[in-house]
């Protein structure tokens, strides 16, 4: 990994974001860029069109269980041309867990955003098909939220009948 290229790309990103870049730190050797929520879509477009991050590796969330800005959503971006790996991070509040979808930029965001929705209940506006991806449609809880009990809510997931059904 070439740190000169990293710096060059980061400089471009800094110029683009200005004051909306909240925080920058390195996790292992990869830059993690915290930015303001309302700049997310245009930053993603900038990353893809100008900086050539054409590969969205992953979208994932975390629950910090704080009273403000409770959730974090990460966008794990890879530039195949420059061999760079960047993380974009946005904070989402519990009372209004809504983010713009990036499905129109990267097709791979579709299922990843569905997973974040399934596990944390964060809605993605503009997502073409925002349904639960792992858990049943009628499941009422978001299992990766901290208040969700480890062993689940008894009876919330159905077990099969122990007498044979004759259908």
């Amino acid at each position, binding site marked *: 990994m070439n740190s000169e290229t990293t710096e060059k790309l980061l400089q471009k990103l800094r110029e683009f974001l200005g004051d909306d870049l909240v925080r920058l730190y390195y996790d292992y050797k990869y830059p993690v860029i915290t930015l303001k929520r309302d700049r997310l879509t245009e930053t993603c477009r900038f990353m893809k069109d100008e900086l050539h991050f054409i590969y969205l590796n992953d979208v994932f969330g975390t629950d910090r269980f704080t009273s403000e800005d409770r959730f974090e959503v990460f966008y794990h971006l890879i530039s195949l041309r420059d061999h760079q790996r960047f993380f974009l991070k946005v904070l989402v509040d519990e009372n209004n867990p809504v983010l713009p979808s990036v499905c129109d930029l990267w097709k791979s965001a579709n299922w990843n955003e569905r997973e974040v929705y399934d596990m944390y209940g964060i809605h993605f506006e503009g997502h073409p098909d925002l349904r639960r991806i*792992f858990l049943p449609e009628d499941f009422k809880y978001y*299992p990766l939220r901290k208040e*969700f*009990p*480890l*062993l*689940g*809510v008894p009876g*919330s*997931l*159905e*077990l*099969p*009948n*122990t007498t*044979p*059904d004759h259908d």
Partner: protein
Amino acid sequence: MSFDRVMGEGFFTTTVDALTKWGRSNAVWPMPMGLACCAIEMMAFAGPKYDAARFGSEVLRFSPRQSDVMIVAGWCTYKMSHAIRRIWDQMPDPKWCIAMGACASTGGMHRCYGVVQGVDNFLPVDVYISGCPPRPESLLNALMRIQDKIKEEQTIKLDS
């Protein structure tokens, strides 16, 4: 080798019950329900080294209609439990069930909302095997326990 030549002019007497039990216990065909890493040990159990053929169980039947004992090998999610129960219901009586390994028996290390904490929540398990994963010998031992159980059952009464 015909039956006549072995017996010659002689004969022997037995009960239908004993004969049925003898036949059943030496042809326990497993239904492999391999869900995770335990399934690898189950393959070793069926292979030449551990040789389940000694007990008449070498034919892992992938059709529930032809099998007698279901070996649940691995951790079972709530989503999978419905499929397992369905296959169990498709197996003809008499049938037995082995819960292989810690996960199938108790949920094991998967103490979380998505994994059924023991397949005995929806299946009548006859033999539990400890271990993570258990060695093939343990599975052979479980099979022998099933055979013992079959020999103690009363087949005629069971059918009535």
